């Protein structure tokens, strides 16, 4: 089912938790709501679930206006951050619970529980209680309980945040596969941009109760709608340099960089760490800097360069030889830069081509 928020607002006392949320997720879509804590993403999810009531606005699941409906009437399933398993029920009873409420016959229930348990590899634990399970197993039980319903939508509130890194990686993939195979529209809330980028069909970035951008991961990555999205998505995030524009050039004390157009006089230049090169100091179209730290990541190396008061991250090959304190230059890949208006923070010019994940070719051309 497609999901739609229509000018939804939520106010808690004097505080606005959500302002005019307007978004649409097509049927079968994996929508991730992404943002820092307090941005309103969980509020948005709870409103859709019916656990809280909007101050104004409407929400649709498919053609139905669900705003006036109770949670149980919305035909959705939710996975909670804490999993919210019923501690006094066995795994089987937990999974079976939504079906029992819907008064399915016992054979039907057993069949579906068995099927889902098998799908999620928890059929061995059906008679255990939640407290006897590991975190990953509980997570699967929570998923199973959501899936068994065959609801019109899944709502997931940071379901992976309580797992350790290894497990999270594994579950991320499984979850994505599961969603694709079930083809049920899913709203997934997280503050982890990596999860968002890897799993989402569509990402809705929220900040301070407002929707910042709704786009595909690639679009978000390549053309963040504003400075917030740019600095929130990607790890490390997009490099942002403040400067002025004169004569088709972006200018800073450390150097200049040619740009296509410059309607405003004060701009922010943005580029991804993999879309830049470390050059010798003084190389053309580069900004002069000094190596702040070098972090080898194995397959590649991340170099942090101090450019004036700012720091710029650059991904280079792992054979990079520079040392902390070395003088160098940073040259963005002209085709991949974006510009933001300084005052509004809005994107004013997209980069001309899609992103390439290749680390920039780099090397030290000069050492002090």
């Amino acid at each position, binding site marked *: 089912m497609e999901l739609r928020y229509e000018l939804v607002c939520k106010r808690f006392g004097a505080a606005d938790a959500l302002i005019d949320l307007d978004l649409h997720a097509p049927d079968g879509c994996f929508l991730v709501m992404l943002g820092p804590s307090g941005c309103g993403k969980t509020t948005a999810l709870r409103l859709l679930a019916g656990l809280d009531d909007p101050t104004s606005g409407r929400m649709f699941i498919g053609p139905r206006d669900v705003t006036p409906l109770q949670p149980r009437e919305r035909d959705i399933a939710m996975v909670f951050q*804490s999993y919210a398993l019923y*501690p*006094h029920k066995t795994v089987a009873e937990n999974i079976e619970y939504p079906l029992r409420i819907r008064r399915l016959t016992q054979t039907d229930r057993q069949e579906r529980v068995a099927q889902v348990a098998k799908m999620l590899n928890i059929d061995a634990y059906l008679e255990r*209680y*939640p*407290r006897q399970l590991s975190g990953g197993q509980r997570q699967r039980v929570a998923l199973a309980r959501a899936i068994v319903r065959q609801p019109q939508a899944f709502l997931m509130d940071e379901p992976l*945040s*309580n797992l350790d890194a290894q497990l999270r990686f594994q579950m991320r993939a499984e979850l994505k596969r599961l969603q694709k195979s079930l083809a049920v529209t899913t709203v997934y809330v997280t503050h982890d941009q990596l999860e968002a980028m890897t799993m989402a069909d569509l990402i809705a970035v929220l900040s301070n109760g407002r929707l910042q951008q709704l786009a595909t991961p690639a679009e978000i990555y390549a053309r963040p709608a504003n400075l917030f999205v740019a600095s929130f998505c990607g790890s490390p995030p997009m490099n942002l340099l403040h400067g002025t524009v004169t004569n088709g050039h972006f200018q800073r004390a450390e150097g200049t960089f040619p740009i296509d157009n410059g309607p405003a006089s004060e701009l922010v230049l943005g580029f991804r760490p993999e879309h830049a090169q470390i050059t010798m100091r003084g190389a053309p179209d580069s900004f002069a800097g000094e190596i702040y730290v070098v972090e080898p990541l194995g397959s590649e190396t991340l170099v942090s360069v101090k450019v004036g008061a700012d720091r710029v991250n650059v991904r280079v090959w792992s054979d990079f030889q520079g040392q902390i304190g070395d003088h160098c230059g940073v040259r963005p890949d002209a085709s991949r830069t974006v510009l933001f208006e300084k005052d509004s923070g809005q994107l004013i010019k997209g980069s001309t081509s899609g992103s390439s994940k290749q680390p920039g070719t780099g090397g030290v051309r000069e050492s002090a």
Partner: protein
Amino acid sequence: MAHKEEDVKSESILSRQLSRRSVLKAGLAGAAGLSVAPFLDACSTFSSSSSSGSTNKIVIGTFQDNAMVPFRDVFVKRFQSETGIKVQYNETNYDAWYQNSKNDGLHKTGAYDIYVMDDNWVPEFAAGKVIQSLDKLGFKVNPDILANGLNQGYWPPKTGAKMKAFANAQPELYAIVIIDDVEILYYNKQYFDGAPKTWDDIAQAAQSKSKPPSLYGWSARGVKGNPIVQTYLPLLNSYGGNFVNQDWSPGFAGPEGVAALERLFSFIPYMPSGSAEFDTDQEVQVLLQGQCMALTEYTGLTHQVDDPAASKVSGQINMAATPSQEKSGPAIGTFICGIASGAPNPQGAKKFLEWFTSSPVQIDFAKTNGSAAVTGSALTDKTISSQYRWLPAIADAVNNSVAKPHTPDEPKFEDILGTRLNEALVQALSKKSGYRSIASQKLTQAANEITAYLKQQGGYF
């Protein structure tokens, strides 16, 4: 880390419920099912209380007291079998009963037909219309009843000080005495040549013969409130003092009252040292254990003195009217019955009381353990007296008895006097000297407090 810890905690809190879930379910279901029951129960209570309104049942309420045992066990039953009127008899704690009966009558709840009362409740119960006028009910008084006992039932009182509002009202009978309880002297005859007549006689015997703690010369109730007042009143009366004078001024702070209290204190060397916390039971115990020569006590004790199960000196205790000094002064404290103003069956109640106070029944009452009957014929019957040697002493005491002040505020009088007397006794027991000044100081204090209270209350001066 924080997450994890929280998880563990909530897990442990939530993990134990399982076994209890079924219990809870059953419990809730049971509670729901049973919640109908008290309503049914209440309905049945209603119906039973309404049936008490029928003419063949009366409900008697009373406080628990040994003197009531023959009344309860013999005469209530006999009345039932003779008349076919069912009698429900409820006894409870003294204070509770005072409160309950007053509430019941004030609000005409109708739980009772007859209240068994202490005689000093009569003014308040009559003035507050807790009980109804027996005269108006047409109650036929047996002329054989001793006047001093009978007079306790009148409001306004026939004798003594009257409150202004009631000064000119015609006394009406509101309650009828059923047991002529009065304080009499109990003495162990092996230490006395005949009954001691005066306090001096007892003091002399105590001085010469007592050997505390194996043998005390005297024993007394010293607990604050009513008990110590009961100990003090026979002394006060016999020394010629009044609780209150005709003009409502306290009569115990004068020289007579002080002398009376000083006399009590003079027994301290021959009294159990715990007397300040003694109530009847402890006071009497030394007598029954053979460790005490004499004491004053109400007539209920007569049921115990010859009972080998309770007494080590059965047969050795004799009785007489309380000693005199300036004059004779036993204190009267009758059991007296009123008919509740909301009584469902006042005629049945009247019938019972007339029956019980009739001369033949009173003679049988006296024959039952030598109970303190209220009629002259019963108390002075030679054949009964030969079996129950204390009956003449009771008659004698009643005829010479002095009543407490007749006012609804009497409990406050007793509380004030009883508190200060108790304080005086505690002081005297610990100092063992300076009795006169202790007595004088505390009695004056009590008198001042009572006067102040009467002024606050109004209606006295």
